[in-house]
């Protein structure tokens, strides 16, 4: 459904994308993960045709992005990171407007709006001005506005940032339904649990390059890290953390807790405890975690996803 080949984007001397390539099959749920400034939004912007690439090719549903941008646009739906709605218009009027831009007839549009508002649990408030909505409700309308023309491909850029749990769950349900209906979805997120829950395949992007790609299982297998030992200390200082880091290079500090990334927790746990005792560190809690996307990401990029 989507083929991206050697995609480059330069802003003066800054290379935002350094020749990334990936392909996404029809009906696939593809997660694009990366820290801030990694190139996720640039990639989405190019695929959404609002940004011209410096080099490379993008093909969506058989249409070349450079030669046939309008057809590409008709094929895709975009849920931007920011809520982009007209606050002084009602939800229904907003949806009528956004849907009309895609050439959907008014009769058909009204029918679809009715269905979508039911789907997102906002039918009762369809005539209220958007400015009276909560952040979560606005975000639901923001997503709904990208679905009115029934796109084959949906780009979702951080669709659940800053919303209440109720709205998040509703969005998750809708996203799952859309995926089940056969829609191809490209999803960027900071939330690992979302990526782990939805994505068939994940591309990890860092500094303008795809550094790993595959299913969650494939990424787990390719990672040298198998487990994480999380130890909480009572008296961890910067100086003591420095000393620990010298002995254990693959560590990450979270306040009074250190995550030790290891391929053999049974062997390493005893050594870590011994080492901590020698340094005078008082252990409060120990937890051993299986490898997850967060740890894979950390091992691949050396950064946390929210960095």
């Amino acid at each position, binding site marked *: 459904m989507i083929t991206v080949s050697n995609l480059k984007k330069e802003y003066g001397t800054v290379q935002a994308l350094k020749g990334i390539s990936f392909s996404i099959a029809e009906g696939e749920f593809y997660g694009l993960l990366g820290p801030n400034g990694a190139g996720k939004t640039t990639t989405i912007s190019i695929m959404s045709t609002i940004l011209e690439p410096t080099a490379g090719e993008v093909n969506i549903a058989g249409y070349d992005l450079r030669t046939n941008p*309008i057809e590409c*646009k008709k094929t*895709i739906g975009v849920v931007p990171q*920011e809520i*982009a*709605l007209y606050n002084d218009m009602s939800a229904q009027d907003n949806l009528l407007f*956004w849907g009309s831009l895609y*050439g959907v007839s008014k009769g058909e549009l009204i029918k679809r709006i009715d269905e979508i508002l039911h789907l997102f649990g906002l039918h009762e408030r369809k005539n209220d001005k958007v400015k009276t909505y909560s952040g979560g409700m606005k975000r639901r309308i923001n997503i709904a506005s990208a679905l009115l023309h029934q796109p084959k491909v949906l780009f979702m850029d951080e669709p659940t940032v800053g919303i209440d749990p109720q709205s998040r769950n509703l969005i998750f349900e809708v996203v799952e339904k859309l995926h089940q209906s056969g829609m191809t979805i490209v999803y960027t997120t900071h939330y690992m649990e979302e990526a782990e829950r939805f994505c068939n395949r994940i591309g990890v992007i860092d500094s303008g390059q795809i550094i790993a790609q595959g299913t969650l299982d494939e990424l787990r297998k390719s990672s040298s890290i198998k487990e994480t030992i999380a130890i909480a200390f009572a008296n961890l200082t910067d100086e003591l953390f420095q000393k620990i880091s010298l002995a254990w290079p693959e560590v990450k500090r979270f306040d009074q807790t250190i995550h030790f990334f290891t391929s053999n927790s049974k062997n390493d746990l005893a050594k870590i405890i011994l080492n901590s005792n020698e340094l005078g560190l008082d252990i409060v809690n120990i937890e051993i975690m299986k490898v997850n996307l967060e740890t894979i990401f950390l091992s691949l990029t050396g950064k946390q996803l929210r960095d």
Partner: protein
Amino acid sequence: MFQLAFKDLKLFFTDRRAMLLTFLLPVTLITLFAFAFGGIGKAKNEVKEYDLPVCDLDLTEDSKTAIAALDTDKAVHVVMVTLEQAQEDVKKGNKDCVLIFHKGFADSLLYGSPLPVELQYDEAQEIQVSMLQRALFTTLAMVPYSNRNNAQRMLNKQFDKLIGGGNEQLKAQVHAQSDSLFKSVGKGVEANPKTSSSTKIAIGSDIKMTKLVEAKEENSPGLIQAVAGTAIMMLLFSVAAIGAGLLDEKQEGTLKKLLYSPMHPNNILFGKMITANSISILQLTVMFIYATVAFGLDIFSHVPSLVLMIVVTAYACSSFGVLLASFAKTRQQVQGFSTLIVLVMSCIGGSMIPIFIMPEFMQKIAVVSVNYWSIQGFYDIFWRTLPLTDTTFLTRILVLFVIGSSLNLVALRMFKKNILQIA
């Protein structure tokens, strides 16, 4: 307290927009008003020449001498024209008036009859023309006496009238004394030519004043000036605000979302242009209807011309608003720029001060503003009652259309450039 004041002053002096509105705008307006009211230059007693169209229908030595005498006046520069052309120019608002030396001027001088000199003028320019009339009166009053023989003849005629019929002996005595008097004056002139040539005797000669273009129905020039001038100035402020809507779209992310749609990016700007045009047309229409209801301005006799002028004025003004929005980065910038530009354009273009009271060079500068062409267009319709097909009226329509189209083209280029910064 002082810390607060210091902080506020520091913020004030780093706020470019505040500085612009506080200092640059008033300074600019003071300068423009000073130029417009002719205040600049007067302190040095500089007198600006007025190009006076003069038509000589008498074509005698005496009429030519009189015209040459007029041309020596520092306030007047004589421009010889044909009567037809001059009247056409006045009717179309290109000239304020024309001074006509009718046939029989030389004979009138010879027989001491009232001089057949007529000033035909546009009533809308009455203030300007009345000032000119005073200057002409002084100069023309000297004309009969610039030639001693004429002067003596005219004086004798006046004495004869005063003495009345049947007193021929008394008349002959007076004529003999005036002959003696003028001979003495002649000797004095020969003895002191410099002083004598600069000393003139003014007795007076009327100039017939004829309105070539005058108020019809209820459409007085003051009302037209008030409605058209104010409407266009307020329209420019309105369209700047409408144009700023584009920046709101940018700031709120909806512009980016519009770009995701299959609509061509240029259509976003065209959509804004349509909005600005529609609201502008509506605003102007409402203003003219209000002027009709409240002040009796007759719009119904000129509907086709009025509709055309409203449409092109709306087009030119809305293009200005869209252009502002296309190069400004924020709504605040649009507000700052629009206040400055609209006030300056309104000042030089005749919205605030009628064009005819401005000095000539200011009148020439006025053509750069949308206000000028629109106001003159509305004068063409309501005052000069030019037909829709008149070339002067159509020229103003064309100029407004060209201004609008040029601004739109620049706006389109700027918009495309700015779009690249959105993503």
